């Protein structure tokens, strides 16, 4: 227990992630950028799923709102990345608060269906509002953030611009993770756990359950929006399918695959899903078939996801060593 606590895993992973551009491979940097951005998306969903016990089928809506906000501000209005990024978080948080206001009035499957309904509305608007979103064609040629200042920095100055973008994204994602971690470990986070465990009882320790669910929903939307903003830039374009229901399903799968009972579970799930997708599509076109099989095995054999299984294995190993 104490040994595990003393190893600063988070720091080790962060430093390892910082060194990826030194591997010198465009492809590794590309994969790593994809992973860290979607890891943030998945962890933001877990604030609802794992911590508050709310199943959202429409989390992609806020990812898309963030991506379009940042993309439109930068492309159409020439606003710098920093402001676009913050605005993406704020606007997606506001929309999450607006939609969430209605969603938290329902429970269980009705809650899930309403989140899906709002997400479909967002998707339809992105698809049809040609003059602003670019419609079906999407928002193409979103300008890259101006990272010229990084060229004058020591150690990283002579890297490719994709590597520079990766490092910026990594730092921003790490900051978001730090904030999210603080939130889930706070008294507020503990109250969210009581709602997950038993909303009726939570009411009768004096908690206005709906209000706290709404707060969690808005926060989750905010961080989904921030990840969406980064993804739009990484992707060099924003498209309506960012908000499509299959994107919402994908992020749910990431969270469940990695394990929603642990803070890092969904991030591990995001990495696993992206890497598996890369590897398997190289050999076969039946990726969805393989993914389905993996999910079925996981749900029956390791209901706690990858991180849940690893943790259980670690606990068993330690028990044997102590015995």
């Amino acid at each position: 227990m104490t040994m595990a606590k003393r190893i600063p895993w988070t720091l080790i992973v962060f430093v390892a992630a910082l060194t990826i551009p030194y591997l010198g491979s465009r492809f590794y940097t590309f994969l790593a950028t994809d992973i860290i951005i979607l890891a943030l998306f998945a962890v933001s969903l877990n604030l609802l799923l794992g911590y508050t016990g709310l199943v959202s089928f429409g989390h992609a809506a806020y990812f898309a709102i963030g991506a379009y906000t940042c993309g439109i501000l930068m492309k159409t209005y020439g606003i710098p990345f920093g402001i676009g990024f913050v605005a993406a978080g704020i606007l997606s948080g506001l929309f999450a608060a607006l939609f969430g206001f209605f969603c938290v009035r329902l429970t269980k499957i009705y809650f899930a269906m309403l989140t899906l309904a709002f997400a479909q509305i967002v998707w339809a608007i992105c698809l049809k509002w040609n003059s602003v979103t670019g419609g079906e064609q999407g928002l193409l040629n979103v300008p890259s953030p101006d990272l010229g200042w990084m060229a004058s920095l020591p150690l990283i100055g002579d890297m490719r611009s994709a590597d520079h973008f990766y490092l910026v994204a990594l730092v921003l994602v790490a900051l978001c993770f730090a904030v999210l971690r603080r939130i889930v470990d706070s008294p507020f986070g503990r109250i969210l756990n009581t709602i997950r465990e038993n909303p009726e009882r939570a009411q009768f320790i004096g908690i206005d359950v709906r209000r706290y669910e709404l707060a969690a929903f808005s926060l989750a939307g905010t961080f989904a929006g921030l990840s969406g903003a980064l993804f739009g830039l990484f992707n060099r374009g924003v498209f309506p399918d960012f908000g499509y229901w299959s994107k919402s399903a994908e992020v749910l799968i990431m969270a469940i695959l990695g394990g929603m009972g642990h803070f890092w579970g969904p991030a591990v799930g995001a990495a696993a899903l992206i890497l598996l997708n890369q590897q398997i599509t190289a050999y076969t076109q039946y990726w969805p078939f393989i993914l389905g099989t993996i999910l079925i095995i996981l749900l029956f054999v390791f209901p706690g996801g990858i991180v849940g299984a690893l943790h259980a294995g670690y606990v068993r190993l330690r028990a044997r060593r102590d015995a």
Partner: protein
Amino acid sequence: MLEVRDIRKSFNGFTAVGGVSLDVPAESITAVIGPNGAGKSTFFNLLTGHLRADAGRVAFAGRDITGVAPHAICRMGIGRSFQHTNIFRNLTVFQNVQAALIAHAGQARNFWSRADDLYREETLKILESLGLADKADAVSSALSHGNQKQLELGIALASDPKLLLLDEPTAGMSATETRESIRLLARIVAERKLTLLFTEHDMEVVFSIAQKIAVLHQGKLIAEGTPEQVRADREVRRVYLGERH
């Protein structure tokens, strides 16, 4: 402390509670008894805002609380337990009580400090008074049924209530567990100078600690008084006690 006036509730034409009035004086122990289906749980849910009354009025410490939401009623100083044990099953025993303390102290909005060691002393003090201190780090769903009921009492006490409403506090307990629980309950009520209103099916429990008994039958109050008066009441003997003895 608690005044109930002519409260009514029906479900699809079935009258569950049909005009009940009851006074619960401060620092008293009152039991509501009645056969299954008499409307005891419905009556409780009307008091705590879980159900909305069709008519009637509930006042607590002089304030009208009819139609007030459960979380607000809890904040006014009413604690309750539920007939089916209602705890936070995947949290530890410690976290169960601590969460209630966090909510009571108005710290629930605090999203920036660490929760782990918050109110450690206060939490342990409550667990000690319930005899659960040695199980503080156990996951609460692993506790025995009797201990879970005690934990639920602990969650209610963490809100520092003036009035405690317990719905069948000894339901599903063995005879030994029941005796221990009642002794514990009597001690805590005396120590904290609480007003206690509870429903119960176990007559031994009722007559051992209640100062006042109200008898519900088919949604109506058919008798009210001291244990001796209720025991002697002919109507009560006929509809209720008679059925059992």
